């Protein structure tokens, strides 16, 4: 129980996936222009991350470790994730069109999102069991969702701010991210 709580709190706040581990920066910069798409992206990542982390854990445990193929981990994981996202897209399109409508645009982007592969690899490196793998995937994607929503909320306000010409667009987003990262440093040492 204690470890589960430590994983959840640690992954959301202390080593936030975006602001401390630098995974998933591309969607963090690209899809955070308004809150609605930030939330859509956040939940899509959560869904795919939990699913792909558990499946890659199974692949690792029952294929790679059993047949001494651990050196193929990178290839096996990226193929698993790519195939999973493709299947998910087809499944949602056919069976749950309403969900596909809100999530569909983000799915192809998620295949090459380093957060998904990154967390899948971290789970194996840290030696988590299946339950803690799922917990860790959930907590990390919740941290991603939190960072996305905070950033989108700030960016909506920034639209109306008068900025120097060179600061408009990406540069100011990096400065905002920097202040957010500093704020999250405050959580260090709580566990």
């Amino acid at each position: 129980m204690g470890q589960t709580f430590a994983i959840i709190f640690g992954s959301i706040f202390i080593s936030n996936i975006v602001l401390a581990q630098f995974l998933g920066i591309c969607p963090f910069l690209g899809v955070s222009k308004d809150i609605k798409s930030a939330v859509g992206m956040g939940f899509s990542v959560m869904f795919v991350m939990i699913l792909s982390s558990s499946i890659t854990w199974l692949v690792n445990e029952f294929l790679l470790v059993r047949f001494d193929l651990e050196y193929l981990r990178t290839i096996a994981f990226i193929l698993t994730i790519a195939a999973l996202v493709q299947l998910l897209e087809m499944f949602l399109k056919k069976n749950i069109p309403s969900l596909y409508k809100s999530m569909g645009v983000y799915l192809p982007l998620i295949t090459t999102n380093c957060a998904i592969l990154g967390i899948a690899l971290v789970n194996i490196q840290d030696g988590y069991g299946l339950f803690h793998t799922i917990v860790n995937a959930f907590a990390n994607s919740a941290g991603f969702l939190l960072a996305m929503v905070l950033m989108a909320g700030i960016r909506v306000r920034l639209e109306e701010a008068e900025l120097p010409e060179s600061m408009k667009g990406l540069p100011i987003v990096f400065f905002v991210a920097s202040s957010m990262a500093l704020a999250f440093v405050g959580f260090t040492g709580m566990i």
Partner: protein
Amino acid sequence: MSLFGELRKGIIAENPLFVQVLGTCPSLAVTTSVDNALGMGVAFSAVLICSNLCISLLRKYVPADIRIPVYIVVIASFVTLVEMIMNAFSPALYSALGIFIPLIVVNCIILGRAEAFAGKNKPLPSIMDGLGMGIGYSIAILLISTIREILGSGSFMGVELFGSNFQPVLVMILPAGAFITMGFLFAAFAFLKNRKAKVKKGEVI
């Protein structure tokens, strides 16, 4: 475009990090010291050049519908090779870069060059393109890491620069420092670009 032109465009005009804004994750994560950035730059360039060559050679045999999975397998194979070589010959660097070596697979620059260039061009221009982009990316992360290491640890490639009285700006090697360095660099490039446009119009000298 000439072969030299293919090489040069990746360094300035189409710099993968500062102009195309691709591959931001590793450029923030591994730039705490110049050594790490150099290792990342070399590993990245090696994968990019090999995958560009391989994909260019395969371009006539890969059906258009399944080209992306094929590209990913090719890239992942080279990343695995680089991972093994680095683990064997430079274990310190391997553990410093950690998870960001396997994550070269999902670096958008490599897949982007495969899709935009190597899948359509002959092998030799593809190698030059990969070399140019690799050098451009390496220069960019070396620039970031130089700023962060000098301010954050007071050293350059591990050599102390300022003597014992220097108080390092610790925040520069924390995540916040990575974001703020990127912010200043992007702002500087935007400033230069805007200024160039104004000079062309004759507004400022």
